[in-house]
């Protein structure tokens, strides 16, 4: 019995030490961003602020607010569109399989793994030609297209769990392809849409390579602005920390409130059904 408790203590000890290590970045962000400017120094990084001062946040907010809104305008339509197209593809690829549909699925899925550097030069030329370069609309299009593989995969796996007998019964009742989609599949997909939307929201909000190459100045999303903020020599690092927290806030909130679905998305995107 005594040895059992020793083991348990060791297990807790390891978990607690690791948890503390994992949380140190959060601690540093919080204490640094809440310090008044005269307490911000490299030597006192770990010290608690003597008073709570929000001036770093107001400074960071004034720098990032326009880009933050750009990200909002980007992430909402891109998430909705890619989820909708993913649901349509997933429905066909799970419930209306035909010869070659597995091949088509694999062909689409490959797009999920490519380094986006390998399509970036043509993409930018293309967006210039259709006059969508340096615009939020261009970024929306980009994220919708390159989001298709993952949303298709997630919905295909999700729909694979809906029993075929349900569709057969509906067909006997005279329902057609669209009728089944609207009256059976969509109502059963609410969880699927939440999982996919959270996943896409997080990925698109956090994305940097497309953002930094397709847009400049006025239409840049928040992550590019944060990177500029941290690269700038004149910006104090308490402001950088406050900016990092502001930029991370939407996805952190989603994680805190809907973490269960976030983890389901993570698993759905990686384990093939």
């Amino acid at each position: 019995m005594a040895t059992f408790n020793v083991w348990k203590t060791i297990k807790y000890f390891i978990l607690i030490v690791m948890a503390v290590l994992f949380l140190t970045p959060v601690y540093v962000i919080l204490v640094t961003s809440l310090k008044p400017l005269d307490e911000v120094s490299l030597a006192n990084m770990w010290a608690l602020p003597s008073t709570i001062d929000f001036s770093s946040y107001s400074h960071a907010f004034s720098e990032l607010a326009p880009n933050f809104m750009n990200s909002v305008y980007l992430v909402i339509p891109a998430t909705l569109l890619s989820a909708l197209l993913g649901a349509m593809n997933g429905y066909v690829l799970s419930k209306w399989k035909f010869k070659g549909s597995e091949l088509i699925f694999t062909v689409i899925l490959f797009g999920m793994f490519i380094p986006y550097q390998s399509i970036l030069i043509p993409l930018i030329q293309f967006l210039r030609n259709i006059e969508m370069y340096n615009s939020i609309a261009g970024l929306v299009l980009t994220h919708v297209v390159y989001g298709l593989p993952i949303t298709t995969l997630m919905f295909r796996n999700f729909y694979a769990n809906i029993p075929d007998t349900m569709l057969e019964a509906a067909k006997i009742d005279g329902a057609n392809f669209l009728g089944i989609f609207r009256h059976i599949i969509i109502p059963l997909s609410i969880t699927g849409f939440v999982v996919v939307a959270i996943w896409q929201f997080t990925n698109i909000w956090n994305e940097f390579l497309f953002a930094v190459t397709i847009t400049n100045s006025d239409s840049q999303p928040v992550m590019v602005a944060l990177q500029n903020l941290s690269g700038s020599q004149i910006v104090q690092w308490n402001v950088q920390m406050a900016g990092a927290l502001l930029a991370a806030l939407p996805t952190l909130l989603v994680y805190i409130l809907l973490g269960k679905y976030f983890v389901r998305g993570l698993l759905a995107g990686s384990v093939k059904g």
Partner: protein
Amino acid sequence: MAEQAVDRQEQEYPENHRQQQAAQKEKKPKKKISGDQWVALGFLAPSFILVLIFVYGFIGWTGWVSVSNWNTLVPDFSFAGLKNYIYLFNDYRFQADLRNTVFFTILFIGLVIVMGLGLSILIDQKLKGESLFRNIFLFPMALSFVVTGVVWQWLLNPSTGYNQFLALFGIQPKWYTDTNILAGFEWGSIEFGLPVAIIAVVIAAVWQMTGFSLAMYLAGLRGIPDELREAARMDGASEFQIYKKVILPMLMPITVSVIIIMAHISLKIFDLIYAMTGSGANFVTDVPGVYMFETTFRGNYYANGAAIAIIMLLMVAVFIVPYLLANRRSDG
């Protein structure tokens, strides 16, 4: 009759031809494609066409740029052969990038697996507060690599951050500013070996991605029925043996998935390094993703950038293509 119908369809919707032909074949003999199947193809076609153009078409286009002379602001598609590739493989910076990618990938994947597996086993012990621990280890997954880079740049800054604690033990690592190459030897124009600076970037990346393997392993552990452990215990196996002989082998498919997914993240990594360290002195923290971005979009060496991108794609494909094909086969 059927052939004629196919021909007509092909003229009207040439891009659908392959799918239709495939669908047609299955429904042979006699049966025509039903109205529903047409609608089904109509559902799939826009996405499929977009992927064909934006993924495969654009990769081909990049491949073409990579063998062109377009190394200025003005596009020049004249054929250059393998000139750009040869240039890269003789280039000090690119050789350093390949070295850094090798060591970054090995350390990153190794640590993500060890940490994820270890923590998931601890969390799976039915201890109190397991969901709190899980959430703490998982939350960095919700962050951007840019945020991670900005924060860890300060935590691993040699003159502050963790070094203030390490000073108590008299250790002052130079982290990402260290230009030493461990166990280095001359190879090509670079010193091949473990760049010490890359360890700092690995720490930040592991902090962010451990949650991924943790969640995967935890799902795997939860899927192993308790009876199996019970049976092993009845046979007199120790807890350690149960993990070694029963549980770890059952988690093997998850390990393979984690390796594949982490490998493709690691081989194309750009944002974390760009935000945290940049290419570093002597390119000790440079990677192909950063080089591609800078040479293409800051230096206007489009053909060189395209060649880097194609090499990155090939490196990723080595991992991904067998994985996708194996998955397809097991799907049946």
